[in-house]
C-alpha cells in the first residue's frame, strides 16, 4: 500500500513537472514561429516588389523578439521552467544535426577543428589567467573565467564550480560575464565576418572556436549562413568534448592545494563531465553514413534539427536579461571583454592560418 502511494506520488510529481514546462515551451514556439513568419514575409514582399534587401535570417528575429519579450514584459513565473528547456532543444538539435555530416566529413573537419581547439584552449587559459592576475581578481574567479572562455561557457563554469569548490559569487560573476559577452558576439561576429569576407567554412570555424556558449556559437554561426552554422556547431562540439579534461586539471590543482576535494576515479570523473549529446551526434552521423536513411529522411532529420534550434534561439533572446547583466562587477567584466577580444583575434589568426594550409 505504502509502495503504491509512493509510486503514485512520484508519477504525479513527474506529470506535474512535465505539465509545468508546457507554457514556456509554447512561448518559445510562438516566438520561433513569429521569427520564421517575419523572415518569410519580408522575403516574399521584397521579391514581389523587386526590392533589393538583405536576407535577415529567422535566427536574428527569434533572438530580437525574445530579447524584447524577456526585457520589456514581466513574464509570469509559470513560463520560466519551459523557457529553461532551450538548452535541451539545443542538445537534441545538435544530435539531429549529425544527419548533415557524413563520418568522413567529421573526421576531416573534426581533425582540423580539434587541432585548432587544442591551441585555442591553451591560449585562452593562459590569456585569461594572465589578465585576471593583472586585474587582481580572486584565483578561483580567474579559473572560472578561464575555463568558461576556453571551453564551453556556462556549462563549463557550472561543472568547474563544484570540482574546484568555488563560491557562488565567483561563479555568478563568471557566468554573467560569459553571457554578456555571448550576447555581444551575436552582433559583432557576423558583422566582422562579412566585413572581412570570411568563407562560410572559415567563419563557422571562427565562431565555433571563439564564442563561448554553445547556444550563442550556434546562433552566431547561423546568423552568417546555414553552412557556417553547421561548421560552428561541429567546432564547438569539439571544444565541448574537452570539458572533462580541463575541469579535471583544475580540480587536481586545487585538491593538491587542499582547497577542494580529491578526485577518486579519474575515468569516472571524465565520463561524468563528458557531454553525452556528442555521442548521439556521432551515432546519427554514422547511421546516415551507413545508408540507414534515404535522402528524403535525411532532409526530414535536418529540418527537425532546425526546429529544435529555432526554440533554442528564442530561448537565447528570452534569457538575456539586461538587468542581471548590468549588475555584475566591473573588473570581471573588463577581464572578460579584454580576454574575449584577444581570444577572438587569436582564433581569427588561427582560422586564417589554417585556411592557408588546408584551404577551408
Amino acid at each position: 500500500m505504502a509502495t503504491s502511494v509512493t509510486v503514485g506520488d512520484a508519477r504525479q510529481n513527474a506529470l506535474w513537472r512535465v505539465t509545468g514546462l508546457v507554457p514556456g515551451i509554447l512561448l518559445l514556439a510562438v516566438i520561433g514561429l513569429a521569427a520564421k513568419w517575419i523572415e518569410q514575409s519580408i522575403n516574399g514582399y521584397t521579391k514581389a516588389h523587386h526590392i533589393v534587401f538583405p536576407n535577415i535570417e529567422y535566427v536574428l528575429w527569434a533572438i530580437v523578439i525574445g530579447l524584447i519579450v524577456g526585457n520589456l514584459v514581466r513574464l509570469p513565473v509559470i513560463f520560466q521552467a519551459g523557457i529553461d528547456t532551450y538548452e535541451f532543444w539545443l542538445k537534441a538539435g545538435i544530435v539531429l544535426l549529425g544527419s548533415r555530416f557524413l563520418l568522413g566529413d567529421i573526421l576531416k573537419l573534426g581533425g582540423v577543428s580539434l587541432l585548432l581547439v587544442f591551441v585555442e584552449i591553451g591560449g585562452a587559459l593562459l590569456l585569461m589567467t594572465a589578465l585576471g592576475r593583472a586585474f587582481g581578481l580572486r584565483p578561483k574567479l580567474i579559473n572560472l573565467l578561464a575555463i568558461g572562455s576556453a571551453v564551453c561557457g556556462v556549462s563549463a563554469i557550472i561543472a568547474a564550480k563544484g570540482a574546484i569548490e568555488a563560491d557562488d559569487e565567483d561563479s555568478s560573476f563568471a557566468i554573467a560575464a560569459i553571457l554578456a559577452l555571448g550576447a555581444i558576439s551575436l552582433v559583432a561576429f557576423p558583422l566582422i565576418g562579412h566585413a572581412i569576407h570570411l568563407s562560410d567554412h572559415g567563419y563557422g570555424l571562427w565562431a565555433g572556436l571563439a564564442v563561448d556558449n554553445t547556444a550563442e556559437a550556434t546562433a552566431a554561426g547561423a546568423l552568417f549562413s546555414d553552412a557556417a552554422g553547421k561548421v560552428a556547431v561541429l567546432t564547438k562540439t569539439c571544444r565541448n568534448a574537452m570539458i572533462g579534461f580541463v575541469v579535471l586539471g583544475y580540480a587536481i590543482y586545487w585538491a593538491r592545494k587542499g582547497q577542494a576535494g580529491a578526485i577518486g576515479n579519474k575515468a569516472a570523473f571524465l565520463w561524468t563531465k563528458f557531454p553525452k549529446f556528442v555521442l548521439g551526434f556521432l551515432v546519427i552521423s554514422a547511421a546516415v553514413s551507413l545508408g540507414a536513411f534515404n535522402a528524403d529522411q535525411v532532409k526530414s532529420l535536418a529540418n527537425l534539427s532546425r526546429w529544435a534550434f529555432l526554440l533554442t534561439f528564442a530561448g537565447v533572446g528570452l534569457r538575456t536579461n539586461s538587468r542581471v547583466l548590468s549588475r555584475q562587477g566591473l573588473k570581471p567584466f573588463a577581464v572578460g571583454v579584454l580576454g574575449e577580444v584577444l581570444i577572438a583575434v587569436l582564433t581569427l589568426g588561427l582560422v586564417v592560418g589554417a585556411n592557408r594550409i588546408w584551404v577551408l
Partner: protein
Amino acid sequence: MPENTAEVKATVGKGGFGLSLDWWAVLLAFLLAALVKLGVLQHVWW
C-alpha cells in the same frame, strides 16, 4: 564541497528520472530519428 556539489548536480542533472539533460536530449533525438525511419514522420516541413 557537499553544498556546492549538490547544487551543481541539481543544475546540470536537471533532466529528472535519474537521467541527465544530455541523455534526455539524445533519447528524444533518437526517438524522432526512429519515427522518421519508420515513416511515421514524413517530409518534415521547414
